[in-house]
Structures are given as structure tokens and as C-alpha cells.
């Protein structure tokens, strides 16, 4: 019986913790007052200027704590609409091991499994079930995409230059957040790859010379 009480106690504590962490809701502002001040053009031009000069992109992303014995490191390469990534499992006590390498070229997927020395070839760009585990520096610009896919160089360029992106910027306002002044843009119908649904985003841009959002928040409609 004592054990049951303890379990019940921890169960209630756990539920309470989840209640306290419940997400904040989207605030309503005086849209009519701010609609006349939307500097959409400057935002769109700065994003296009940045991505217009980039035709290839490569990065590595580290997961877990690098001081751990085992952690993952992902190398991602992207050229126009073709992309390729390698997943490496790194063990600090031994040498780095390439767990698998995947490329998507000419509508064909190649997966190399070094463990059994096999190269798998398949027509089409197969969906990576675990792609959401590999965030990219481009994730900050996910608000630009609406096509239901992970943001790539190509679809960011296409979606920002599309008139529908301009229409989806609902309004802009100024907001003080932790002592800094931000321009906040509310953007509608942003497709979230992980949740597979359209969300409303608020992006916070601190430096007006940079199109890079310092913070973004996604709200369920």
C-alpha cells in the first residue's frame, strides 16, 4: 500500500509539472494599427540577397555532448536542389566510424553501409524518417517554406521570391524582449516538417541589417 501511495504521489507530481510547462498562447495585437507599418519588402530583399549569392552549402552538426564517449556528428552537403549527407557515429576511444552515407542525385537515392560493404540504390528521393533529428542552420529560415519539406537552399530561394510569401507576412511590430528591441514578424501558414501541419510563426529579428532571426516561436492554430 505504501508503495502505491508513493507511485500515486509521483504520478500527480509528474502531471502537475506538465501542466506548469503548458505552452504560451499566441497574443492578439492591434492588427489594424500596425498593418500600415509592415516593412515586408526590406525583410524579403535581405533574405533573397543572402541566399541569392549562395549556390552550395556544407556543414556538420554535433549531437549530444562532445565530451561524451559516444556522440553523433552529421555532415550535410547541399548543391542547388541535390543534397547528400553522411551520418557518422564517433567513438572517442576508437576511430570515427561512418555508419551510413546517403546521397540524393538525379532522382536516385544511394545508401552506403560500410558495415556490410553494400551500396543500396533506389529510384526516387526516399523520405528520411529520421531527418528531423538533423537540424540544419537553415532551420532558422523554415518560416519561408510551405511545401511540406525540410528547408533546402532551393526551396528557400523559391518560396521567398514567391508572392505568396509576401502575403503570408501578416504583420510586423516592435517588441522589447529581455532588454533588447526586436522587430517581430508574424507569418501565417508555415508548414512544420516535424509536426506535418501548418503553424503560425513569430520571428524576432534584432539586428536590422541581418535577416537572421534571433528567436522564433511556432504556435498551433
Amino acid at each position, binding site marked *: 500500500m505504501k508503495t502505491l501511495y508513493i507511485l500515486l504521489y509521483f504520478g500527480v507530481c509528474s502531471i502537475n509539472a506538465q501542466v506548469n510547462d503548458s505552452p504560451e498562447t499566441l497574443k492578439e495585437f492591434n492588427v489594424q494599427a500596425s498593418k500600415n507599418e509592415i516593412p515586408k519588402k526590406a525583410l524579403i530583399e535581405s533574405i533573397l540577397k543572402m541566399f541569392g*549569392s549562395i549556390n552550395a552549402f*556544407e556543414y556538420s552538426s554535433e549531437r549530444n555532448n562532445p565530451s561524451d564517449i559516444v556522440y553523433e556528428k552529421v555532415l550535410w552537403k547541399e548543391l542547388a536542389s541535390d543534397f*547528400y549527407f553522411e551520418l557518422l557515429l564517433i567513438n572517442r576511444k576508437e576511430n570515427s566510424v561512418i555508419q551510413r552515407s546517403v546521397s540524393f542525385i538525379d532522382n536516385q537515392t544511394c545508401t552506403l553501409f560500410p558495415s556490410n560493404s553494400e551500396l543500396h540504390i*533506389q529510384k526516387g528521393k526516399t523520405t528520411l524518417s529520421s531527418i528531423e533529428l538533423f537540424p540544419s542552420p537553415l532551420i*532558422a529560415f523554415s518560416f519561408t517554406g510551405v511545401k511540406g519539406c525540410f528547408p533546402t537552399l532551393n526551396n528557400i530561394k523559391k518560396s521567398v521570391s514567391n508572392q505568396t510569401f509576401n502575403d503570408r507576412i501578416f504583420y510586423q511590430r516592435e517588441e522589447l524582449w529581455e532588454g533588447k528591441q526586436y522587430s517581430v514578424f508574424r507569418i501565417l501558414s508555415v508548414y512544420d516538417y516535424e509536426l506535418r501541419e501548418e503553424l503560425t510563426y513569430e520571428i524576432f529579428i534584432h539586428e536590422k541589417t541581418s535577416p537572421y532571426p534571433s528567436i522564433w*516561436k511556432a504556435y498551433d492554430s
Partner: protein
Amino acid sequence: MIKRFDSVETSKLVEGNGYFYYPNKYTMFQSKYRGVIKGPKGTVKYFPVKSAGSFSHVLINHLDETDLQIDPMLADYIFDVDTGRKIKIPK
């Protein structure tokens, strides 16, 4: 709010005429495992998860098409998933 992304540190990468801002450190608050449970204080829909990550070796405009190819010679066999055929690579 179901997700929040914070750039803890950002870097500006300049290469020729190209430039790119990226988060070399970030935190992400997400609501994973969507669902609804009934708690003593009402309905709870979200399960917050906090994670942190970093990006390194970010390069722009350095690649060409040959950088995006896997060398078949690294393998002993090619397996065609569509036809089920397995071919040994002569070496």
C-alpha cells in the same frame, strides 16, 4: 506556443560576394509526442522537450557535383532495392 528556437550565438560567414548567418549554438524547446492527457489542473496537450546543438565547419560556395557522389568502389556489392538484384563489384 509549441516550439521555440533561440540562437545563443550566431556567426556571419563571408565568402566572396556570399554571406550567411548561422547559429553556432542554439537551444530548441519543442512539444514532441503530441497527445492529450487529463490532469488535475485541466487538459494537457503538450510535452516540452529542451535540446541544444551546434553547427561547425559551415562552408558556402565550396562544393561541386563531384562532392555529392558516393564512390561505389567503397562497397563490395550493389543492391538494387527496386528489382532486388545484388551485384558483386569486380575489383
